């Protein structure tokens, strides 16, 4: 997997920048088509099956901070993803007092080492939102264009779920879903009273094998740590590594791409990158350049690729690169289920995420905000780690004595230990993840005054939520209270109000940002055509979430994978017919 610096004369059929969902899929499809491929990854190598990289099945006492988060692992000391919102020497800036937080993972597989494996297809409505509510834009393609690729992704990578026949939540080629956990059964029962659906979740975790190279889930609930058995999807384990075994793929790790190089006619000739080990600049040449560096990093590379033929950056003759940046909305609430005090003990780790979820179930025409959200659920007798038992100063009152009077918060001693045992596994949480409206004025651009430690100009963000997102967050909180109460829960914390946008997470916090290199039929209003090919540079393609015209209330990964496959097929076709 490691490599030596190649001479600068090296030339490939295709250079792929980034090894996450988009880059990984493209690597697999293009190398299987017989093309020589260079994958250029800004981070290091990573393989959770190697003992030296393993954090799965570690106990909290194997970390002196007991799994607490650190700057480079904001989701905990054993989380697989290395990087975070704040990377030393790789800053980004913000404009006009607005906020966008940019999460990056510097490693093979990119952010697929982090995500919750929630694998939802966009539905027919999700590609044509403008036709429905007049906001944003329609995609130049529809569900029928992407469906064959969703089917192929399901079969190649594997996703469990249940066929439901909900129009805008298309069913796939599902593996069997796991049975719900106890708190999930309580929620299903409670939600029935409210007419809010709760159905088996759709996660790319193998409950059965889809091929002979990957194992099946052994129910440790730790997908976020990377799986030794490759039983969940990450781009490194399921796409890049198999492609390297089978095809002509060279993987360049720790190489930070500065720009796409072009010739006088404006055609891409390759990339130039900084090798992090010697801090020297190198060039690679190729017939085709594919960017899969993540929506914002790809926009950054394109904007930094200025030349005589592309004075505003490659692909940016429309001025749209970086525009229409949008993330999912997010809000959360939790409750305690008094019925679950003093639970029976058994191993209920289950898969790495919720076993059930709520797809969007209402009609926005009858609501005061334009787009929907889905709901994710948490709870159960999870493995204690840093933060366990942190709220005994507010939680003990939920336990009552034999006469029905509540225990006193705080305290110490044997009584405290007894109450901690009683409370274990009795809390549940809900998180909404919603669709936002893409805005021209929400964007990333190059900050003319700041460079990173490799001398590459950095991104500057400008982002504001609109009324639609704020009202949606308010609706989420009403729903949370409805379901939690109907399930027998006592609400914890307080309901956020307008003073903090109803608990709406800051842009970037949900890590679903898309739209920076959006596709469209009009080259004046979009960066890419419907095949994710740059309007003004025919051998340059984007395969991350940059091409998304709108983001749906669905996690973007499954659509990134499907579109990347579709784009890769198009590249092969165009190369074969000598169009590029």
């Amino acid at each position, binding site marked *: 997997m490691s490599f030596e610096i190649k001479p600068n004369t090296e030339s490939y059929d295709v250079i792929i920048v980034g090894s996450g969902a988009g880059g990984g899929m493209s690597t697999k499809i293009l190398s299987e088509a017989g093309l020589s491929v260079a994958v250029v990854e800004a981070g290091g190598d990573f393989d959770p099956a190697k003992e030296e990289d393993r954090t799965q099945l570690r106990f909290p006492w*194997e970390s002196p901070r007991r799994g607490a988060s650190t700057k480079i692992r904001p989701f905990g000391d054993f989380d697989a993803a290395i990087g975070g919102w704040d990377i030393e020497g790789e800053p980004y800036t913000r404009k006009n007092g607005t906020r966008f937080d940019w999460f990056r993972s510097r490693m093979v597989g990119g952010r697929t080492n982090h995500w919750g494996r929630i694998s939802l297809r966009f539905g027919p409505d999700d590609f044509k939102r403008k036709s429905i509510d007049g906001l944003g834009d329609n995609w130049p393609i529809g569900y029928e264009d992407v469906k064959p690729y969703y089917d192929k992704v399901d079969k190649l990578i594997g996703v469990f779920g249940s066929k439901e026949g909900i129009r805008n939540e298309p069913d796939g080629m599902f593996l069997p879903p796991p049975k719900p956990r106890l708190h999930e059964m309580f929620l299903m029962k409670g939600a029935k009273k409210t007419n809010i659906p709760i159905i088996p979740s759709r996660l790319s975790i193998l409950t059965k094998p889809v091929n002979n190279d990957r194992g099946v889930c052994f129910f440790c609930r730790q997908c976020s740590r990377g799986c030794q058995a490759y039983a969940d999807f990450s781009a490194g384990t399921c796409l890049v590594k198999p492609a390297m075994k089978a095809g002509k793929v060279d993987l360049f790790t720790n190489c930070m791409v500065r720009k796409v190089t072009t010739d006088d006619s404006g055609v891409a000739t390759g990339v130039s990158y900084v090798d992090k080990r010697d801090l020297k600049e190198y060039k690679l040449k190729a017939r085709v350049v594919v960017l899969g560096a993540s929506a914002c990093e790809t926009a950054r590379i394109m904007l930094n690729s200025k030349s005589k033929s592309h004075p505003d950056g490659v692909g940016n003759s429309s001025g749209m690169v970086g525009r229409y940046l949008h993330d999912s909305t997010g809000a959360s609430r939790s409750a305690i289920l008094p019925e679950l005090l003093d639970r029976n003990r058994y191993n209920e780790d289950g898969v790495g995420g919720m076993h059930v979820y709520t797809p969007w179930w209402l009609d926005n025409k009858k609501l005061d905000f334009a787009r929907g959200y889905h709901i994710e659920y948490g709870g159960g007798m999870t493995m204690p780690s840093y933060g366990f038992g942190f709220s005994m100063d507010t939680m003990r009152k939920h336990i009552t004595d034999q006469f029905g009077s509540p225990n006193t918060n705080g305290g110490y001693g044997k009584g405290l230990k007894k109450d901690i045992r009683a409370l274990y596994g009795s809390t549940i949480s809900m998180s909404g993840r919603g669709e936002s409206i893409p805005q021209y004025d929400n964007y990333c651009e190059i900050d003319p005054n700041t460079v990173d430690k490799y001398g590459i100009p950095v991104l500057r963000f400008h982002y504001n939520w609109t009324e639609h997102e704020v009202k949606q967050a308010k609706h989420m909180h009403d729903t949370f209270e409805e379901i939690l109460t109907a399930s027998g829960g006592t609400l914890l914390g307080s309901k956020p109000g307008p003073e903090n946008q109803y608990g709406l997470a800051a842009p970037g916090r949900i890590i679903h940002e898309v739209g920076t290199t959006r596709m469209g039929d009009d080259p004046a209003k979009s960066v890419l055509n419907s095949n994710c090919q740059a309007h003004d540079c025919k051998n340059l393609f984007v395969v991350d979430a940059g091409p998304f015209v709108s983001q749906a209330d669905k996690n973007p990964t499954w659509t990134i994978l499907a579109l990347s496959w579709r784009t890769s097929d198009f590249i092969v076709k165009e190369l074969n017919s000598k169009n590029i």
Partner: protein
Amino acid sequence: MNRRENIKLLLTGTLGTGLIWSACSPEAKQDLYSPQLHGGTVGGRSLEETALDQKLLSETFFTKEEMKKLGVLVDIIIPADEVSESASQANVPDFIEFMTKDQPSYQTPLRGGLMWLDHQADERYSKQFLDISNEERIRIIDDIAWPDKAEKEFETGVRFFNILRNLTVTGFYTTEAGFKDLGYLGNKANVWDGVPQEVMDRYGLEPEQKYAGIYLKPEDRSTLAAWDNQGNLIS
């Protein structure tokens, strides 16, 4: 990141700047292979992370006397009982020492709180906190341990004790002793087949019939998946 990449990055000095391995020199390489302080996080560490843990482990924040005080306090919070051992037996003070270095925002409230206990012991009994009797200590602790009942004058003390309680409880329940105490049975390979019947019976719950046919059956986990043209799983 693999070890070879780590070493390359180390030797070119692009990682670990400001930490103990900032030099791009043969000494740096020697450091990498030198014996390490025990106790850093295991598994998948980048060089930066290993260096940070080693640095924190090599430093001392609390004085010997403060550690003694912590030992007394954590055992008031988590004493031994018929189920499990005490917090000091589970080395919770060492965990708190590490956390104050890893998250420096703990330093002032914890040190300040420990000093405040001496101040109170002095005011009430003209002695240091470690020199008063257990009953006397509990009288002071009772003034700050119950946030909903505490007098306003003890506000800061309450805040200190909340932090200390949090760290003690977390520190104890993330050890093997704590896992046993709690009855946590996971973090190992197993097959999930739903909530045990006796547990569903306790709450009067039933599995949803609608999904009975599609939920994973443990015995099907070894056969390769296949679908028909309609996307129905047929094996």
